[in-house]
Structure formats: C-alpha cells, structure tokens
C-alpha cells in the first residue's frame, strides 16, 4: 500500500515537473517548484515507512522548512530585485539619498 502511495506521489511529481518545464510564466515555475517540494517531503516520509527507517523523517522535516525558505527567497528576488533588508530600511536609504 505504501508502494501505491509512493507511485501516486511520483505521478504527481511528474505532472508538477511538466508544469515547471512548460512555464509559460516564471510564476508558474515557482508554483510548480513549491508543489514539487511538498511532494518530495511526502515522498521521503512515505519512503521512511517503506524502508522502516524512521530517521528519514528528519529529512522530510528539514525539507519542509528549506523548501519554504527557497520559495520566499525567490519571491523576494522577483518582487524587489535584490536581497537587501526590509522595505522600511530601503525607504530610509532612499530618503537619505534624496536629502
């Protein structure tokens, strides 16, 4: 039964991968990568049970967090164009320059 679930997750990953390859916009790709990450977390969790190694769950945990950081970093780049600090700091800098 774990086998069936892991196959289902693999199919879903394949569909998400098609979307990531097809695009057409950058945001479609980010959404697909995000979904792909969630599926990887689930796949690793299922694999942990399939192989009976519960330590593998730790990796799923780390991935659940890392994936989120990756997506937020990507979005920050897309919307702001840089990784400088928060908007507030940016505004302070701009004010300083204009004065």
């Amino acid at each position: 039964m774990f086998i069936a679930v892991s196959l289902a997750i693999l199919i879903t990953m394949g569909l998400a991968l098609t979307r990531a390859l097809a695009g057409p916009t950058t945001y479609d790709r980010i959404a697909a990568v995000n979904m792909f990450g969630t599926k990887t977390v689930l796949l690793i969790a299922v694999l942990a049970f399939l192989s009976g190694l519960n330590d593998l769950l730790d990796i799923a945990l780390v991935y659940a967090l890392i994936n989120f950081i990756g997506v937020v970093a990507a979005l920050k780049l897309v919307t702001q164009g840089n990784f400088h600090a928060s908007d507030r700091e940016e505004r302070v800098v701009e004010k300083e320059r204009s004065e």
Partner: protein
Amino acid sequence: MIDTIINITLLAFLATTSVAIVRMTNLFAIVMLFGIFSLLSAGLFVVMDAPDVAFTEAAVGAGISTVLMLATLALTRNSSKTPYTEASPAHRPWLPLIVVAVTGAALVYGTWDIPSFGDPNAPAQTHVARYYIENSIVETGVPNMVTAVLASYRGFDTLGEVAVVYTAGVAVLLLIGGRRPKTAVKLKDKGEQDEA
C-alpha cells in the same frame, strides 16, 4: 522492486530536468529548476539509504545554493524587476551537450570497475568501516555513526574543513552584502532609539 521503480523514475525526472536546464535561457527559471534537481537528488539519496547525504543536499543544495544563486542573479542584473515572460532560446547548445555527453559516458565507463552498490566485500567496507561500526558508540557516545566519524575520529580534518567553509562563507557574504549602504544601518539604529 519498488526501489528500482522509484530509482528509475527519479533518474528519468533528473535527466528531463537537466535537459531542460541546458535548453533554457531564462536564468531565473534555471535556478528554479536547480531547486527541483536538488530535491530529486535528495530523493535518490533517501532511496539509497543515505540520510546524512540527503540532509546535506537539503541544507546546501535546496537551501543555501538556491538563495546564493538568486542573490547572484540579483547582483548581476540591472533591471529592478524580473520580467515574467520568457524569451525563446537564441541558439542551440549542441557543443556543450556533446562535451557533457562524452564526459558522462567516460564516467559511466569508469563505474564498471566500481564494486556494486552495497557490496560487503568492497574495499571501502573491509578496512576501518568494521571498526567504526563496532566501536564508535562505545568510544564516542554519539549515536549517529557518520557524526562520530566526522566529529571525533576525523575531528582535525573536519576542523580544517570548517575553517575553509567559514572563510568561503565570509567571502560570499562580503561579496553579496558589501553593496549595502552604510547609512541605512546608522539611520535604522537612530530610528530604533527614537522609538525606544
């Protein structure tokens, strides 16, 4: 059986992703695909029962390197906004593809001499590995054997590695964060004092 299926599927995805990365022109999309690539390789490591490698892949491959590549993109690009539409490929990357294919074929040829996966008689398993497996918990008290080897038996080696990685990290931070105007920090401090 199921391991084989998962292995083959993940490898097929990996190959598809790599071809797509080679063929694509939008750097941002390529970074996103690198994220998928890293997730897939971590899945492969998990199937091969190598949790520690998968951990490293999670932290370095999917986390840090994605952020670093994005930061590099941000520093090297002039326009403030990323266009969300993408241009079609300007040229066909046949030459790099051939180079990569030849290199890959050579590497695959090299694997024929490697002992098969998980072979107990492989040279890597016959020397010190047995000693670590039998004694590491008693001698170091660390339940994870890989950690015991890295942090205790090869402690000085790891210390050197940590020094190298630390230096590299500081250098990257200086390169990426160096452009931040100093006035911002000063003003922010002032603002906080005002609030307090």
